[in-house]
């Protein structure tokens, strides 16, 4: 049975200029213990999916479709039960570590506050965060707790926040860009920690990332997103080594070691979506059909792809 099942999820944001289709008909499922990655271009809607799962979207969002987690239907749960799930069952390491910390409080006090809300003894909470910080290969974890957030460099802030989220031992962890801003040394630390969580605790992890190398190392399967849609899902090695979708191919060519070749053109407006394939204007393999007819998802070996070529 699938553990997290997202089906036909659509998220629109109502703005002055019209409704922005941030997430457009997305379906995927995660098995227990699986590490599932969502990769894709900036603004493609990755973070919105994470926020939709935890119901943390701003009030101008309109959500359709369904998200089930175990036996619960997350979109129809009342607020009280949802709060029970947030943090304890599903935890989110947000994309913006700087904005998630109160600049006026010492890091130690932030930790204590969070544990107080969760109803956990403060001292024990701080101890487990210290352990996690060591796990994340931070030097001098005790000093970090005595500092204020602005005294930490970007990478340190990120790891501090990760340690805080991991220390409640959630069964599903959503990590939004866990390696963003980390240098290669710290990235290795994060990787080790994620492997540890996976192996030791059987955690299921939903990794939202644009770090293709990290995805390749940690994920079992990945979904590639473009302009609010999933264009391809499959085992990570297939996708990142022999990609099917033209967008995935272009993405790999943009890696510095593959030539740093940017995609030409723009992503389509998310307010007035084109009729045909959303990648049409930037695709090197397009045909006339692509301009008029939106491709549907098709199953191919080990996964699905959304392209007329298949």
């Amino acid at each position, binding site marked *: 049975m699938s553990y997290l099942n997202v089906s036909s999820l659509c998220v629109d944001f109502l703005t002055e200029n019209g409704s922005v289709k941030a997430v457009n008909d997305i379906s995927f499922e995660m098995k227990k213990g699986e590490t599932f990655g969502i990769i894709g271009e900036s603004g493609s809607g990755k973070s919105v999916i994470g926020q939709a799962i935890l119901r*943390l*979207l701003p009030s101008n969002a309109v959500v359709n479709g369904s998200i089930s987690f175990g036996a619960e239907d997350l979109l129809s749960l009342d*607020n009280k039960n949802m709060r029970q799930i947030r*943090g304890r069952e599903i935890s*989110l390491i947000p994309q913006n570590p700087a904005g998630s910390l109160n*600049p*006026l409080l010492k890091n130690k006090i932030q930790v204590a506050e969070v544990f107080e809300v969760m109803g956990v003894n403060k001292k024990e909470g701080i101890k487990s965060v210290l352990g996690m910080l060591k796990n994340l290969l931070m030097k001098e974890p005790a000093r970090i707790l005595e500092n204020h957030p602005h005294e930490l460099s970007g990478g340190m802030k990120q790891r501090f926040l990760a340690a805080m989220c991991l220390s409640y031992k959630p069964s599903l962890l959503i990590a939004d860009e866990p390696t963003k801003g980390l240098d290669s040394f710290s990235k290795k630390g994060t990787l080790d920690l994620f492997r540890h969580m996976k192996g030791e605790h059987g955690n299921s992890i939903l990794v939202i990332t644009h770090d293709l190398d990290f995805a390749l190392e940690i994920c079992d399967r990945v979904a590639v997103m473009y302009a609010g849609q999933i264009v391809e899902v499959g085992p990570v090695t297939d996708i990142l080594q022999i990609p099917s979708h033209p967008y995935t191919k272009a993405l790999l060519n943009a890696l510095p070691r593959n030539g740093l070749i940017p995609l030409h053109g723009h992503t389509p407006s998310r307010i007035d979506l084109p009729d045909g394939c959303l990648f049409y204007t930037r695709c090197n393999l397009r045909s006339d059909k692509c301009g008029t007819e939106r491709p549907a998802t098709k199953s191919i070996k080990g996964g699905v792809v959304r392209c007329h070529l298949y």
Partner: protein
Amino acid sequence: MTGKIFRRKDMTISILLLALLVVVAISYPLLALSDPNAIDLTNKNLAPSAEHPLGTDYLGRDILNRLAAGTTTSLSIAAGVSAISLFVGVLIGCISGYYGGIIDETLSRIIDIFLSFPGIVFALAIMGFLGGGVINLILALSVVHWAKYARLMRGQVLSIKENEYVLSAKIIGAGDFHIMRKHLIPNSVATVIILATIDIGHVLLSIAALNFLGIGLPADIPEWGAMLSAGKEFMRTSPYQTIFPGMAITMVVIIFSIIGEGLRDIFDPNDTGGEYL
């Protein structure tokens, strides 16, 4: 924004009540009905009746009439005190937090001194020095209130002044005044405004307290706090002249605290639609 305001029922009701009070406050002096100070000693200390819906006071003045007239005075005093102390508090707090160093130390010391006096005693002393009257009352209460806002504002500014948009503005060549006006104040004033809104009710209570202590407004100025304290000697025999002004003050205190709480939600920049992590 407007949608967010009226989604809250308590907020909607409070705003409507406040609007009503403001209409009364503005229109009453214009309408110039009967004189709220008209003394009628034959009809003093009356209970509510058809002729005097809320009764009369110890000089036989109509309580309803005086309450309505008092709306103008009470709300103007409260608004004046809030406006002055907010302006001074925000300005001083912002300067103190932004410049730091010796400027901050000096201003913070001054703020601390003002905060260390017990408010009412302080106001009492100032009134003793300046004398009674509406303007002096506004000044005295502003002197008492501004420091609280200054301290809060300073904390807010400290927490955002290292944000990269502020640094970026500095590097781009923006002057200090521009940075404060465009970046620091808009991003930190919300909390202070919320506090000031909740405080408006407290300002009315302070006026009442000052009048209780015998310093405040002359007896012929219709004002809720003054009415409340003037009626205190007749509490046993004729309680209406304290009950009704008391109710009016309580209502305004509640209205402003509901609006203040509502504003807190509305101003929240991490708008998560009312749900929190």
